[in-house]
């Protein structure tokens, strides 16, 4: 059998393979240059960019858990101005799709970020982090409120012709209502899942392990939740491109997400386990296709069969 085609289309983009590096685990991309060829990635999503620089939370910020990790970094980033001046020029030279993740605490902050990035060379799409607190609704996360997600998505779409992906939080009863609201407001794709809210305790010291007390759980521990939510959204909203993530550490993990209904996947915590993870996972996915007589990786998308 000839080499399988790894190309996939998602949310307004055509990617050379479905493996994208996830926001918050890949810096501004260039940090990984010594470890893999960035041009061969399906894409990369930058650290969440806010209007102003953010220093982040006090340490300790991370804690390893069973098959996972908790983080409460606090969205530390260089801010929009320095991102455009210092990071974007080098990103614009890459052959892979660069998706810029946006973080705001009010609708107009998201809109201002989108306006500033619209038409910039090197930006292939925007991904909205709606897991952040909505200052106008007393700090409740945008992502748990379909109307708030719709408002953010609509405001961003009004400012840019770039594809807009909305990254959903799993900390809801069902992601379908929120996904639907985002799509109706113009989202080109749905990314899910962000981290699950969790905590860890030092029983001997009777203190939380994180200075922030609670943090986001990621890694292989959350893969079943991610698969379930991707499947739910794909079932409920056929035709809506989904970017699946949560605990992907191998090519077979990626295949599971595609089968559940994702058109592409993101690798997050896997980049910490092994800085060359994205390359390895894409290679393993190609091998999976060969071994299972799959000619095109896109043939896997939404191909889940009923229970035996």
């Amino acid at each position, binding site marked *: 059998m000839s080499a399988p085609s790894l190309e996939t289309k998602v949310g307004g983009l055509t990617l050379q393979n479905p493996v994208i590096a996830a926001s918050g*685990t890949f*810096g501004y991309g260039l940090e990984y240059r010594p470890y893999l060829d960035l041009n061969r990635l399906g894409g990369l999503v930058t650290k969440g960019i806010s209007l102003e620089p953010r220093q982040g939370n*006090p340490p300790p*910020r991370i804690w*390893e858990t069973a098959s996972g*990790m908790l983080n409460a*970094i606090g969205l*530390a980033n260089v801010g929009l101005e320095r991102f455009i001046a210092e990071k974007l020029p080098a990103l614009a030279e890459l052959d892979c799709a660069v998706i810029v993740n946006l973080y705001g605490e009010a609708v107009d902050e998201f809109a201002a970020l989108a306006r500033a990035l619209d038409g910039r060379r090197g930006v292939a799409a925007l991904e909205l982090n709606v897991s952040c607190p909505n200052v106008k609704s007393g700090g409740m996360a945008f992502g748990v409120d379909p109307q708030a997600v719709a408002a953010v998505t609509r405001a961003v779409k009004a400012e840019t012709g770039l594809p807009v992906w909305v990254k959903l939080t799993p900390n809801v009863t069902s992601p379908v209502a929120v996904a639907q609201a985002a799509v109706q407001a113009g989202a080109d794709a749905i990314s899910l899942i962000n981290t699950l809210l969790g905590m860890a305790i030092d029983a001997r010291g009777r203190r939380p392990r994180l200075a922030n007390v609670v943090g986001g759980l990621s890694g292989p521990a959350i893969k079943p939740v991610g698969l379930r939510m991707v499947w739910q959204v794909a079932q409920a909203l056929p035709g809506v491109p989904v970017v699946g993530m949560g605990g992907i550490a191998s090519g077979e993990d990626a295949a599971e997400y595609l089968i559940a209904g994702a058109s592409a996947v993101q690798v997050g915590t896997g*980049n*910490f386990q092994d800085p060359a993870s994205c390359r390895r996972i894409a290679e393993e996915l190609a091998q999976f296709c060969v071994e299972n007589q799959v000619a095109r990786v896109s043939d896997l998308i939404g191909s889940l069969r009923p229970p035996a």
Partner: protein
Amino acid sequence: MTAWARIAENLRLGQDVFRLRLEAPEIAAQARPGQFVMLKVRHGGDPLLARPFSIHGAENGELFILYRVVGRGTKILSMARPGKNLALWGPLGRGFDLGVANPVLVAGGMGMAPLPFTAEELVREGKRPAFLLGMLTTGGYVALVDALDKRLKNVGVAISWASEDGGLGRKGLVTALLAEALQNGAAHILACGPLPMLKAVAALAAEHGAPCQVSLEAPMACGIGVCLGCALPAAGEGYLRACQEGPVLDSARLDWARL
């Protein structure tokens, strides 16, 4: 760079202290004193993350790591047999600046790990470093003490020991030795050890107006500057990443009150 390195030796040097020797020629060739590597204690997803280990030595294509069993990861590592391969990446971070006059090396407990390599390189550059090493107790660490004494003696450096139980050298804290060394002409401090020791060292340095480089540790997931887990409070405001701006930092760049 990433390597898949064969374990040449994993030698017990005390009740809970081991010295790992890895065949990692490319990393060993680039390693500088004070830098570190991220090492997966075994292949696969459990434990999930690699651990940062400072470089204890690098010669003839081999990398040395001195470690104490403190948790599940190091317990697993202590059981790894020669012949097995481990994944690692590095060398990482900023090491010690060796362009200093009259250096005094100050080690506390396992903070000793990067300092023999540092002393050897200082000697190679024509310096005569003083080497102060404090431990809680040296009982149970005969092989470790011997190995360190011998290694430093090879480059003409005699270790001044301190132990809190009085088992070896001066009874008490290594900072007492440092205070004397500063009065006797030591000018530039290079220190690694537990936080309370480093705080005391930084305070002594400030008191004597001595420049002071400290090597710090922090929990980290990636080691390459992206996870932002290893934030250390910076003097003024904000944070420094132990893995990028550190792990060796000028003590004046840190906010010791927030550490």
